[in-house]
């Protein structure tokens, strides 16, 4: 078990170092991507700032509270974006074009091969902006960060990332039955936008939906609310960890059923 894990880790390292080398080679591409993303983010932040010009607080949330949530949302999203971008292609043409065959011909897990197929440097920008915003909002908004809280933040980010990946995995795996599932993946993925703002501003139906059904609330608002003193550790971490693990188990289950389906009908 540990031996397999080590082998996969080593393999991933080999892929990653190649991808990073390629990124270094095309530095201008990377910088342009980073800049574009920064401008988009700037628009989002400006919007929040503009709203807060008019009103001192939003249902008890200050500007820096919102910035903190907004920033947090970008971190797991960016990390997931970096590492699992190829799932979008699985939902796209991989199955129709018979590309999936090759993942079944190597003695390593097909999901690992899909993940290792691509590294998306754009995600680095998302993550960095997220970290900057979180640090800035925390220092301005008077959130004290102890070493313990930093560790907790990292743990929350990890499980929030798992939620992103699991949702993508579940929806991309539908393509094993439908041949393509990119539009449904896109539709649900767009809902992650909801996670950038406090849940309280939404209707109860949406709140329930993005907490339990498509749990994007757990990728930003719910974990962030702990640091803003709005919820207990149990409510935030407990919920995030348990739902992320359920989502991951479901994702892996659907993926492996999908392979069974593929084995019987092909492409």
């Amino acid at each position: 078990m540990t031996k397999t894990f080590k082998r996969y880790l080593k393999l991933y390292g080999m892929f990653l170092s190649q991808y990073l080398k390629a990124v270094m080679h095309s530095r201008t591409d990377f910088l342009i991507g980073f800049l574009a993303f920064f401008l988009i983010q700037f628009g989002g932040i400006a919007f929040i700032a503009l709203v807060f010009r008019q009103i001192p607080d939003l249902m008890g949330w200050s500007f820096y509270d919102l910035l903190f949530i907004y920033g947090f949302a970008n971190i797991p999203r960016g990390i997931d974006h970096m590492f699992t971008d190829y799932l979008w292609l699985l939902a796209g043409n991989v199955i129709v074009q018979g590309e999936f065959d090759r993942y079944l011909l190597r003695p390593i897990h097909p999901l690992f091969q899909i993940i290792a197929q691509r590294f998306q440097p754009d995600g680095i920008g998302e993550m960095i902006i997220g970290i900057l915003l979180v640090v800035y909002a925390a220092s301005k908004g008077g959130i004290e960060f102890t070493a313990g809280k930093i560790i907790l933040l990292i743990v929350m980010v990890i499980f929030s990332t798992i939620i992103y990946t699991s949702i993508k995995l579940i929806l991309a795996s539908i393509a094993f039955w439908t041949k393509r599932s990119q539009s449904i993946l896109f539709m649900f993925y767009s809902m992650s936008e909801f996670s950038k703002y406090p849940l309280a501003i939404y209707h109860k139906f949406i709140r329930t939906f993005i907490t339990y059904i498509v749990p994007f609330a757990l990728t930003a608002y719910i974990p962030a609310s702990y640091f803003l003193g709005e919820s207990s550790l149990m409510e935030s971490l407990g919920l995030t960890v348990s739902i992320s693990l359920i989502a991951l188990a479901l994702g892996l289950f659907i993926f492996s059923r999908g392979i069974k389906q593929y084995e019987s009908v092909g492409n």
Partner: protein
Amino acid sequence: MENMIEVKGLTKTFKSYKKGKGLSGTIKTLFKREVTEIEAVKDISFNIRPGEIIGYIGANGAGKSTTIKMMTGILNPTSGFVKVDGRVPYEKRQENAKHIGVVFGQKTQLWWDLPVGETFAILKEVYQVPDAFYAEQMKYFDEIFELSEFMGQTVRTLSLGQRMRADLAASMLHNPKVLFLDEPTIGLDVMVKERIRKAIKDMNKRYGTTILLTTHDMSDIEELCHRIIIIDKGQLLYDGGIDTIRRDFGYERKIVFDLRYDDAEVVGAILQQMRDEIQGCTPENMTYTLSESQLSVIFNRNEINISSIMNYVLQHLNVIDFSVKDMDIEAIVKRF
């Protein structure tokens, strides 16, 4: 000796759902779907011994790829079974994958964005190839495929011939017991084809690798295969030595001439005379067809000298262009 590959009663049926026409048709299919069953492979059985090179032949859509997919574990059969080196590939897919190599001529198995050199380093890790054997293999591949020519290039920048050499080397790195090669020479020029054939032969000799290959190229079969298996419409048509095929079809050649003429009847008369003028031109040994100023002559090159046909046609008719072709597999399958 034990069989390396055992195929018994292998059948694969695909279900396909008919889609209705227009909106009303689409709605109808939501409630009642018309199922058509397509039998891609029907009750095929054969055995392959260790070290054999088998040509797996058939027209497009005959069921070759479906069979290979079942032998490599990508597809489950509907009934019957496959055993490769004692394993059922679709039941122990990853374990089976360690002991086989697969090349699809149409698409690469390699990572598009990686340099060729790095690809091999990664495959070494994937198949857990020991250092010493890896070094030996890489040296060997460099001899037969001249890999160092493009080791530093990424896979996407390779020419088709280079890519095929890299793909073949990659499939052989872990010294698999069985190699499945689906159209390994497709689209390649004669020189590269020759090099690839040499490498396949060499690999077979050096390690006793069992090789199953599909091809549309008659020379691949003549030069490589110990035995051929022909399937058509999913069924086994022929399983046996290459001699029968070689005797019956292997020596057939086809010359296609583009002609310029005013009167087809005159041309017809000239062609009639060809039978008398050239030695051995019996109807069994030589046939021709003329349509839309294209003349195709099919003849047995054992019985008739190619130069006598060329001479006759060039002397008597106004030839704009010509080409000499091997008999293609489709024609052979059709005549069975």
